[in-house]
């Protein structure tokens, strides 16, 4: 089976050069298989990944990733793979005194783990609290990774305190408009803290899954979102964004949401060193081809992407997603 690996090399981190890559997908051609293959490849090459999911569940928990479930446990323990569930952080109501707190009010050890693992949480709390909102709807331990920050005894009483004061401090329902940007800022702060805590790995990769959702849901401006992504980019070697490029969200500019999403995606495309576009076949559905993958390389001039020059990797390939894996081949190739 023709491997996908040579196509993934532009995304691999090569410190000290920083680069930004963009992966676009459409409804007909989702990019989850690409993201999981990329994650596996980066981990194989010895990098550390932080995946921030703005839509949906953990990347490696879905069908592709479940096969590698055991391997992920090892990487999580080594802090080489971290999944940040931004949906919970930003949108689900804060924790109340239900079963979730059963997780947190516990012995110091478990509490420390939960508190430490949730260092990335951003809540709709008073900003002073280092919030910890393990999701009540998720199975414990599935998405949240335990980041063994050095045991901070002062954190434990703080979290304990939060759980006791929670019922009185929680607002009854989420209020998106007032706290939209503050929610994003809080998430950004927590994520920056997480990224700096991983600084011992020199090949850090940040993967953002569909950050343009925030334009529609939180109402942030494209400009602000680009600034936030830039800040996160400073702490890692490579940032990869996965976005959707459906025609209405890219070319029609009647509503604010469409305009801002188009602005965001095109701004990132201008700055990205490599753009990988996945789309369905123009001729319709086929049983042996899932879609078209187009790779365009911008080329930085000073430091060429991948070190080899762009002529080799730019082009269009067809791909077919199957149970055993993904085949990538050229048009008209015999297989």
């Amino acid at each position, binding site marked *: 089976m023709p491997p996908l690996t040579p196509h993934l090399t532009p995304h691999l981190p090569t410190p000290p050069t*920083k680069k930004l890559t963009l992966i676009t997908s459409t409804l007909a051609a989702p990019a989850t298989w690409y993201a999981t293959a990329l994650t596996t490849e980066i981990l194989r090459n010895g990098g550390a990944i932080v995946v921030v999911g703005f839509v949906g569940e953990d990347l490696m928990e879905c069908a592709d990733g479940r096969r590698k479930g055991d391997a992920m446990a090892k990487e999580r323990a080594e802090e080489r793979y971290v999944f940040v569930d931004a949906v919970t952080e930003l949108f689900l109501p804060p924790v109340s005194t239900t079963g979730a707190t059963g997780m947190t009010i516990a012995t110091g050890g478990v509490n420390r783990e939960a508190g430490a693992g949730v260092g990335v949480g951003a809540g709709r709390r008073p900003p002073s609290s280092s919030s910890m909102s393990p999701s009540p709807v998720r199975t414990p331990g599935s998405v949240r990774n335990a980041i063994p920050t050095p045991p901070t005894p002062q954190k434990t009483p703080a979290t304990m305190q939060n759980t006791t004061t929670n019922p009185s401090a929680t607002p009854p329902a989420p209020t998106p408009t007032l706290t939209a940007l503050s929610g994003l800022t809080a998430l950004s702060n927590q994520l920056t803290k997480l990224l700096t805590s991983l600084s011992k790995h020199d090949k850090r990769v940040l993967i953002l899954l569909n950050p343009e959702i925030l334009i529609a849901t939180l109402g942030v401006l494209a*400009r602000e979102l680009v*600034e936030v992504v830039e800040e996160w980019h400073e702490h890692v070697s490579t940032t990869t964004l996965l976005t959707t490029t459906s025609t209405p969200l890219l070319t029609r500019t009647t509503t604010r949401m469409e305009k801002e999403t188009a*602005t965001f995606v095109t701004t990132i495309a201008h700055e990205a060193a490599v753009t990988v576009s996945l*789309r369905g076949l123009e001729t319709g559905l086929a049983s042996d081809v899932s879609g078209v993958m187009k790779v*365009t390389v911008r080329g930085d001039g000073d430091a060429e992407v991948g070190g080899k020059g762009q002529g080799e990797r730019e082009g269009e390939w067809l791909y077919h997603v199957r149970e055993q894996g993904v085949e990538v081949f050229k048009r008209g190739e015999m297989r």
Partner: protein
Amino acid sequence: MSAKASLNHRRTHNLLLISRLLSLRDAASPFTLILDSLAQSARPLVREYIQRATKVQNCKIVYVSFSSFSPPSEISQLITARRKPIPQLQKEIQAALSNSPRTLLILDSLNPLSSSAPLALSSFLSSLLSPTTTLLGIYHIDIPLSLPAEGTTSSYPDSAPDPLTLLRYFATTLLTVHSITHLLAEKRAKDRSLPPPQFGLDEGIEGVLVGLGSNAPEGFVVEMEYRRKSGRGVGEWFYVPLKPLGGLSSVLPGKTEEEKIILLEDHPEWRVSEQVERRKEDETESEDEGPRSTFELGLTEKQRRKREEVVLPYFDAQREGGVGGGGKILFTPDREIDDFDDEEDEI
């Protein structure tokens, strides 16, 4: 011949102009606006500016990054404009410009500024100008602009000009970069009167953002519009090779080193049809040969004599006694005719 002379004159004049602009000589252009797109990024052109500026003595290169993820190397100072209010940014830039005899100030991406504070755009830009500064602004034309909404403090009136129009008005030089592969494809289609191919977002296919052949590593095309103080504008298309183009660079009068920029017309693949015509003109002395082919089209003496002796068949038929009876119509009726009536012919 006069056409050729004027082409040479135009070539020399415009190449000198572009090389003066890129080397920042004589403060030729206080505010240069570079328009780029997803098909061709402005980065190679900016790099070209920076490379030439490093050769100029005492020239400081200040790079103000509004939304740039990877600023180029070889700059003297980097100022990030992220989340800074405009007065603070102005102060920082003035501080950077203050103590250097010559500066190249590069504003990466005027788009965020145009969408967040369009009212302040003109005053901000004019505050940065000075006799010793050359301002270089980059604007992406395919990023949609969302102006501040009505009712906010910095709302932009509908009747006011678009920020891009304002910028084009202010600029003393307007450089638009194009992709060479796309231009050549369009020219080939135009030469055959076919509709030009579309690339990137114009293709109209869902999911296509950047077309193939964008940002070619061989080089790019710059469309220059230079506005003199008198108001006259000079427009020209140039090709800037990034990889050596095989002997097409020229030594301009008054300079010692080669200039690698050439006119787009001098690009070997640009004027293919015209080159064929020029070849025909140059070969007027070989017209006697007729069209060149691999077989003989001429006649030897013997063949000519034999040919003159041939009598063509129609000559014989035209004689009275020849074959066919000189053209008369001979009608031989059938034997069993019984319906022949003489009276029918008397109408």
